């Protein structure tokens, strides 16, 4: 098998430059590439365009790169958890493109799949549709949406092997699989890195062909945004 292993996050992020377009997996703070984000902050690259469903919170996730003003343009679907984001956006410091979540996912998958463009009903008749080709199919209006073009894709998986095969866990899967192979270089960080042959080939979510670099991530915080629980007293 082709070996995709790199030794650490520094090697994994080699080649990232200011002004690049980056995809980052995760939904909220769930399944985000924590190690890569930390390294991007250390590298100090700026003028970045980031494609990610959310923008983190003030002091975690992509919020870290907002604090340090490394992000020029944010492409996301929901950014409601981040006061600094809102401030930079309303003041015009940050360029923001809000796009429907399903369109965001599909534009990633289109990039992964060599589909340059597709039609979707989401956003027709709204400001999302402004300036876009609209066309009727089966009596319903749709918008033409294009595949993303990105330089690096940073994803987080649960388990991976040295050939780059990935398995995600729970709802930490989210956008991560769709971003694999959707940029020129895909960097996967995993909680557990195993030799080839240890993952069941039937259970691999993303085959290694979509991944250029893989490394064992460490010191995951895995913050919870909304800790909601049942208590034994109140029942279900």
């Amino acid at each position, binding site marked *: 098998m082709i070996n995709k292993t790199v030794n650490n996050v520094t090697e994994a992020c080699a080649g990232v430059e200011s002004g690049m377009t980056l995809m980052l997996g995760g*939904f*909220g*703070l*769930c*399944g985000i590439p924590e190690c890569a984000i930390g390294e991007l902050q250390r590298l100090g690259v700026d003028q970045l365009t980031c494609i990610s*469903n959310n923008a983190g919170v003030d002091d975690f996730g992509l919020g870290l790169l907002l604090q340090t003003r490394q992000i020029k343009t944010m492409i*996301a*679907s*929901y*950014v*409601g*958890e981040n006061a600094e984001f*809102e401030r930079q*956006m*309303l003041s015009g410091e940050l360029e*923001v493109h*809000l796009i*429907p*979540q*399903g*369109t*965001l*996912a*599909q534009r*990633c*998958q289109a990039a992964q799949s060599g589909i340059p463009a597709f039609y*979707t*009903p*989401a*956003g*027709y*008749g*709204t*400001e*999302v549709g402004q300036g876009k080709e609209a066309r009727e199919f089966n009596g319903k209006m749709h918008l033409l949406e294009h595949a993303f073009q990105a330089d690096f894709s940073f994803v987080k998986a*649960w388990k991976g092997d040295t050939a780059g095969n990935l398995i*995600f*866990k*729970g*709802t*930490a*899967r*989210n*956008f*991560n*699989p*769709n971003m694999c192979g959707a940029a020129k270089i895909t960097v996967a960080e995993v909680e557990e890195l195993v030799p080839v042959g240890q993952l069941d080939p039937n259970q691999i*979510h993303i085959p290694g062909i979509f991944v250029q670099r893989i490394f064992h991530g460490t010191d995951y915080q*895995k*913050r*919870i*945004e*909304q*800790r*909601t*629980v*049942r*208590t*034994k007293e109140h029942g*279900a």
Partner: protein
Amino acid sequence: MALNKFQIAQRIAQEVKDGYYVNLGIGIPTLVANFVREDISVEFQSENGILGMGPFPWEGEEDADLINAGKQTITALPGAAFFDSALSFSMIRGQHVDLTILGAMEVSQNGDIANWKIPGKMVKGMGGAMDLVASADRIIVAMTHTNKAGDSKLLSACTLPLTGVGCVKKIVTDLAVLEVRDNAFHLLERAPGVSVKEIQEATEGALIIPDEVPEMLK
């Protein structure tokens, strides 16, 4: 008397039928799950990637890798499935989800909905709402009839940026249940003790009032 948010959720729960896959938005819609009849089979989809969503976890059993679209910790029921965001919206866009319940800031009498942006002020983003309203066959809006300033949220035309056009079919507010068709709000039910006149005064858009308007059933 106007319904509280739990009562709104309770009334909407009556719209959930056996065998439905349901997507619940943040806020009041999330509460609907608590009121669905226990003798029917319903599965809740959360667009971040779970089908078969269960209740909140017991204290101490929260899993950061298991949340819903509101970023709340949840559980997975036996028979649940996890999936990626593209497949999640395949379910939504492909009309495999039977019922979508979501909140709104404004609904117009032709079924337009606005719930994601107040220019110059609030810019949370649309999340999955635009995909949901553009695709779902059955959409129920859960909201208060008027906003905090007392202005009607049921309008002849939306004033805020739209989330979707001509898509809302039913609205359940603290005052009434309404159907949206033929470019008007059709009053179906009123909250217990709420008069037709109160509803009329709280509705800016065209309101069609039948001869008889029953009170909502519990």
